[in-house]
């Protein structure tokens, strides 16, 4: 009773739709990057995180080594506690590594850049990164610039 051709075309339609979804997942979005290998957590305390968001990338020498997992306010120091999830395969990052918040391009989004230190010991789960540099907030930079310029003029 049911036309065979109908079933075939419907099958093709469903398959094409699923392929399109797959393309959107793998080729267009970052799903391919998301299947994070089990990593380890490190906390860094920043004075100001600017526009940093959960899931922003963490890079070392430009290579992506992890992502921001959580951002909390430290109620004692009033600084931001940023929890980084570093991929398990990058388990040889020295303990005196410095973390800074950078902006990708002039208007791009913010990410955390690590600069490797020289210690022989490596960061482990639960460690804290002490050397941090806060995000540059454009208004503050411009304000400082104008202020110093005004001082210089006098």
């Amino acid at each position: 009773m049911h036309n065979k051709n109908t079933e075939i075309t419907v099958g093709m339609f469903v398959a094409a739709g699923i392929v399109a979804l797959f393309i959107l997942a793998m080729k267009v979005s970052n799903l391919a990057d998301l299947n994070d290998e089990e990593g380890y957590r490190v906390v860094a305390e920043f004075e100001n995180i600017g526009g940093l968001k959960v899931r922003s990338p963490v890079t070392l020498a430009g290579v992506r080594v992890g992502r921001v997992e959580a951002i909390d306010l430290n109620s004692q120091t009033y600084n931001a506690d940023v929890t980084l999830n570093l991929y398990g395969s990058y388990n040889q990052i020295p303990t005196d590594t410095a973390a800074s918040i950078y902006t990708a391009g002039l208007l791009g989004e913010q990410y955390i850049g690590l600069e490797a230190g020289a210690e022989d010991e490596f960061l482990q789960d639960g460690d804290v990164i002490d050397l941090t540099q806060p995000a540059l907030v454009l208004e503050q930079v411009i304000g400082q610039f104008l202020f110093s310029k005004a001082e210089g003029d006098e």
Partner: protein
Amino acid sequence: MIDTIRSLGRWGLDSFERLGRGHIFLLHTLQGVPELFLRFSLVIQQLFSVGVLSVLLILISGLFVGMVLGLQGYNTLVDFGAEESLGVLVSLSLVRELGPVVSALLFAGRAGSALTAEIGLMKSTEQLSGMEMMAVDPMRRVIAPRFLAGLISMPLLAALFSAMGIFGGFLVGHSLLGIDDGAFWSQMQVKTDWYDDVLNGVIKSIVFGFVCTWIALFEGYDATPTSEGVGRATTRTVVHSAFAILGLDFVLTALMFGEG
């Protein structure tokens, strides 16, 4: 004056009553869905007329929408020297908004109106009544399979639309305007998030598919059983679906992308 208020009141009451009937209708439809898995051939037939017959329209529209996005986006981005971000612009606008919304609007116009006309015609030629008297529940036999088919088709069509649109944007960006293809794809991949963007877009299109199919079937089922009534119901399907899609899109966008 009093007459105006009275007609407004009557309109309000009528609308409420229709809304109520619409929800009861939906309830009966949903009750018919589970047993469809035992008779999936009914759904397959409807997938053909609801889904497959819309594919060509969706693909071509998607291609052109993507190409236009590519051109317009390039012209704007080049002023900032950010034409490398064209891929991001194209993919985000398609995956988040245009894919679900435009394909749902096209779906309402193509498949929704056809569903309304078909059901309305079945009603006006007493086919639905005839089925009832043959002890076959039209809600289960006619309405539910079409509903499920619409629900399945919509996200697939939206995905096809988005994929095709991104391809169209890439065609324009890379082949016509000479943007580096590596930059196009990699920027896109970095900035398009699977959960936040793609999955939310898919959720949107499922919601739109649900609402559009519901409206189309209900309008057909509730149509005045004359050729004039069916014609008016078909128009109503397209208009109401468009309102519902755009209104819900705002609500969903606010829920999904509202907080940073």
